[in-house]
């Protein structure tokens, strides 16, 4: 009886581990960590939920939880971590955000356009991370590590 129970439990644990996509990172701590590791703490401010919705226009229920940091200067730097319920919808909103930001910056801050064009966007099926910053190589590494890749 005990053996059966243990083997059932082991099977459950294994199944849970195999469920689609990677692990979902906690958006708040992940965002904080990326900002810190990219040495952006001084120039980034955390946004609240209403600001995130007013910038990304996610569909209702598309995002479970999120965190967003934006530059407190005129640059387009951004670190966003979005735990998705509907990944396709989240990707679409992130793309629209980048397109709009690019259109605005090409008039006012054309030097930001390269960064926006080369934004780091990656996901593991559950969590999507967006980074726009100067050090794109470090950003790629940080994002991969945060997504458990």
């Amino acid at each position, binding site marked *: 009886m005990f053996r059966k129970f243990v083997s059932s439990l082991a099977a459950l644990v294994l199944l849970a581990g195999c469920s689609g996509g990677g692990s979902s990172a906690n958006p708040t701590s992940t965002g904080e960590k990326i900002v810190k590791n990219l040495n952006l703490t001084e120039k980034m*401010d955390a*946004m609240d939920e*209403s*600001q995130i*919705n*007013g*910038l990304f*226009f996610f569909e209702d229920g598309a995002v479970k939880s999120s965190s967003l940091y*934006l530059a*407190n*200067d*005129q640059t387009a730097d951004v670190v966003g971590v979005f735990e998705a319920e509907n990944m396709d919808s989240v990707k679409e909103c992130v793309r629209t955000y980048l*397109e*709009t930001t690019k*259109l*605005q*910056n*090409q*008039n*006012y*801050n054309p030097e930001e356009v390269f960064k926006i064009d080369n934004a780091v966007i990656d996901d593991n099926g559950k969590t999507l991370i967006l980074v726009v910053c100067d050090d794109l190589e470090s950003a790629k590494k940080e994002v991969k590590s945060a997504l458990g890749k």
Partner: protein
Amino acid sequence: MKKLMILCMGAVLLCGCSAPEKQEDPDATPEPVTYACRYIDKYDYNQPAGFSDMVSDDWYDTALFAGDSRMGSIALYGTHENAQVEYVTSLNLMRIGNMPVDGRDDGKTLMDILEETDKENIYLLFGINEIRNPNFDAFGEKLQEIVDMLMKDHPTRSIYLILSYHPDKIDGLPEPRLTEHLNNLNTTISEIAKKSHVYFVNPDDGLDDEAGTVIDEYVWDGLHFNVPGARAFEEYLGYHVVRREKYVQEICE
């Protein structure tokens, strides 16, 4: 016996209730008559501010003009040096507490300036950087929050929400979507004005050509005012100041 006691109590109570007779003193000075007073505001907040006499230069001592890069034209080419003009290029209202104001080295945001100001006449021009948004719900909520904050300790202050004039073009938003988005944006703004009893001004009334877009000679890129445009905009605002005393009456009864 019980009946008698009840009758006595009734008589005592009745005596206690009768008002003592007032002895009028013919030499006494009469008590001043007090009136209940209230303010009646007859201004129609459903309408944009109408044309009136141009304000004097002193009036600009009390004025703060705040907004996005379009307000920058007043900062650059305006003729009233006593007016305070603060703007943020590329400002999205979601970032009003996050982006630094142009031309300042103290790192203050527009939200800092608005929270600190004691100006009596405040003009707000926002929304053009949000014009591609699918809706203006979040924008409206933020603008409402700002208006509420400005009114909180200054109920008699005059706030003017400036509607977005129709630019010649906006990249990535061709017609007729541009017009549709502008209508939605300006409806959001004017609804806030009506609800909060603050004024709104509609520069399209005075700065547009026959095509319904801003006069070509007033803008250098289809959106931002050049020198003649900034002067015309400044003049338009100066001729559309609401004289509160004309509409608000104190009624005492």
